[in-house]
C-alpha cells in the first residue's frame, strides 16, 4: 500500500507539472487544447488528498470517500464535480464535492477533508480560518496572506504557473500530516518552531 502511495505521489507530481505546463502554454499562445486554470486548481485539490494524512484516517481505509468543500467559487466547483464524475467512471478513488455559495456562520465544514475558499470570500477567510483552527480540515485558498491568517495551503500564480505555499505549522496544529514530497514541491514552507534545540 505504501508502495502504491509512493508510486502515485510520483504520478501525481508529474500530472501537476504537466497540467501547469499546458495551462501556461494555453495562456501564452491561446492554442486549441485550452485547459483552464480552474481545471488545474481542481487537479491540485484532488491531488492534495494523496499527500495529506488525516488523524482519523486509518491507513487501510484509503477507499473512503474524501470530501472536498468549495466555498464561493462556482467554476471550480463544476470542474471538481466533472473530475469526480470522470474518476468514478474510471473506478478510481471517489471524491465528493460540496459547494457552498458564500459564507454563513451556520455552515458546518466538519464533513470536509479539504475546504477551498474562493476569492469571493476574501473578506471572510480570516474568520473561517480562525473558526477551523485546530480542526483536521485542510484549508486551501488562492487569496493573498492566507497563510499568515492561519490558512494551510495558498495557491499562488507565478510566471503563468500555479504553485503553492504551505503553512506546516498550522497543518500540524490541526493534526494533519503533510507528506514531505508535497512540502518539497512547495514554493515556501512555514515551519513550526523546533521542539528542542
Amino acid at each position, binding site marked *: 500500500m*505504501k508502495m502504491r502511495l509512493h508510486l502515485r505521489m510520483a504520478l501525481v507530481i508529474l500530472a501537476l507539472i504537466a497540467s501547469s505546463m499546458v495551462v501556461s502554454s494555453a495562456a501564452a499562445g491561446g492554442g486549441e487544447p485550452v485547459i483552464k486554470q480552474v481545471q488545474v486548481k481542481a487537479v491540485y485539490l484532488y491531488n492534495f488528498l494523496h499527500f495529506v494524512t488525516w488523524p482519523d484516517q486509518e491507513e487501510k481505509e484509503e477507499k473512503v470517500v474524501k470530501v472536498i468543500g468549495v466555498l464561493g467559487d462556482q467554476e471550480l466547483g463544476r470542474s471538481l464535480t466533472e473530475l469526480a464524475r470522470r474518476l468514478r467512471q474510471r473506478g478510481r478513488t471517489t471524491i465528493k464535492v460540496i459547494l457552498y455559495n458564500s459564507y454563513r456562520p451556520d455552515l458546518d465544514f466538519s464533513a470536509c477533508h479539504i475546504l477551498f475558499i474562493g476569492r469571493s470570500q476574501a473578506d471572510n477567510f480570516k474568520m473561517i480560518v480562525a473558526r477551523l483552527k485546530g480542526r483536521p480540515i485542510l484549508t486551501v485558498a488562492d487569496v493573498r496572506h492566507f497563510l499568515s491568517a492561519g490558512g494551510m495551503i495558498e495557491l499562488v500564480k507565478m510566471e503563468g504557473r500555479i504553485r503553492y505555499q504551505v503553512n506546516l505549522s498550522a497543518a500540524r496544529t490541526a493534526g494533519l*500530516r*503533510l*507528506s*514531505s*514530497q508535497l*512540502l*518539497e514541491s512547495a514554493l515556501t514552507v512555514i*515551519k513550526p518552531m523546533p521542539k528542542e*534545540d
Partner: protein
Amino acid sequence: MFWRDVSIKHKLTLILMLTSSLTVLVACLAFYGLVVNHFQKVYKRDMNNLALIVGSNCKAALMFDVPEDAGVVLATLKGRKSVRQVILYDKQGHVFASYKASALKGTSVKEICSFSRKIILDDGTYVGRIVIEDDMRDMARGRRQILLILLLVGVGSLFSAFWLSAILRNVVSKPLLSLTEMVKRIAAGDFQFKKCSSMRGRDEMGVLCSAFVEMNKRLRDSHERLEEYNRTLEGRVAARTEELQNAMDDLRKSQAQLVQSEKMAALGQLVAGVAHDINNNISFIAGALPNIKRMTNELVVEMAENHKASPAWQMHLDIVSLLANAEEGVRRTKKIVQDLNAFSRSSHGQLVPVDIHAELNNIINLLRYECRDKAEIIRDFDPDLPVVYCQRDHMGQAYMNILLNAIQAIEKRGTIRLKTWPAGGKAYISFQDNGSGIEPEALEYIFDPFFSTKPVGQGTGLGLSITYNIVKNHHGKIEVHSAPGRGTEIVIILPVEPCKKADEEDGGVGGME
C-alpha cells in the same frame, strides 16, 4: 639422475602438464583476484549509490521532520535482500527513522559491511546521515561460485593438456620409438628393412628418418659388398694363384726355350764348322775317287790283255768292290754334311704365299715309293685353308721330315692321315700315323738334335730338330701327341699372315753356312 631415465614420452607429458597447470593456476588466481576486486569495487559503489539515493529520497522527510515518509522510503529497501539494517539520523544525531530486515537473523558482525553517507541539501545544509548495514554473505557466496567455476576450468584445462600431451607424444615420441627400434635392429646386424613405416612428411622427424633410411641403405650396401667380397675372396685368390702359376710355368717354359735356343745356336755354329771341314776333306776323297776308278779301269784293261790269269786280276776285282764302297761312303758323308748344313743354315729366304695342299701333294708324290707297300695316305684337307706365307723349300723339308718319320714308325702296314684346317688366323697341319708311337720318356727329347730312336746308320737324328727350327723361324708351333703302340700325331701350327719379326730374328739363329 632419475630424470634422465624417464622416457621422453613421460617427460613430455610431465613438462606439458606442469606448464599447463602452472599457467592455469596463475591465470585462475589472476582472474579470481581481478573478479573479486572488481566485484568489491562494484559492490562498494553500489552500496554508496544506494546510500546516496536513499539519503536523497529522505532529504525532504528530514527537512520537514516527517519520519513517516522516511520510514516509507527506507522500507523500500525491503526489495534488497542483503540489506540488514538502515538507520537514518537527523542532524542532531538522533535516530530519525530506521529499517530492520526481519529475515536476516544470526548474522555475525564480521559478515556485515556498513556504509554511511551524509545527507546534504542543495544549499549545503547538513540535514542528517544514513547508515546502511549490508550482509556480505551473498558476496562470499558469489566468490565461492567463482572459485568453483575456476576450479572446473582448471580441471578441464588439465584434462585438455593431458589430451594434448597425448597427441604430442604421438607426434614426437612414436617416430622416436620406431627410430630406436630401427637402430636396435641395425645394431643387431639386420639391414633388411627399407622404409620407416611410421614416418612420412618433411618435418624434422621425417628428415631424420629419411636420412636414417639412407644411412641404413648405404650400410646395407657396404655390408653386402663386404660379404660378397668375402665370398669371392677365395675364388679370387685361387684364380690369382692359378694366374701366377701359369705365369711361372710360362716363364719356366720360355726359360727352357731360351736355353734350348742358345744350345741350338751354339750347336749350329759347331755343326757348321764341322760340316765345312768334313766337306773340304771329303772333297779330296770325292775328287780322287773317280780318277782312281778310271785309272783302275785302265789298269784292268791293260792287265786283262796280258795277265788275265795272274792273281793281280783277282785283286782288281776286290779293288773295284772297295772303290764302290768308298764311293758309297763319300755319298753318305756328303748327305750327312748336307743335313748338317741344312740344320745350321740360316733361313734367309723370301716369304711367299704357298698353297699348303699343293705342297703336301708334291711331297706325297715324292715319297710314293717309300710308302708304297707300307702306308696308305689319307688326305683330309679343308678347302677353306688360306694361303700361308712361308719359305717354301724349308717348310717342304719340314713336311718331308715328319712324313718320313711317320712312314718309318709304321712297322708293317698302316695309315697316315693328313689333315688341315684353319682356326683363329692360324693354319693347322696334322700328320697322324698309327705306328709304334713314342715312349713318354722320349717325348721331350724328340726335337733335340742327334736324338734318334733308329738304329745307328739309319738316321742322323737331325730331322725333327731341323723341322722344329724351321717352324720356329716361321713363328709357328709344333705339338706332339703320342702313345706307344697307338701312333703319333704331330701338328704344325703356322700363322697365316707373315710376321715381320720372323725375318729380322732369322739371322740370330743360324748365321753360318
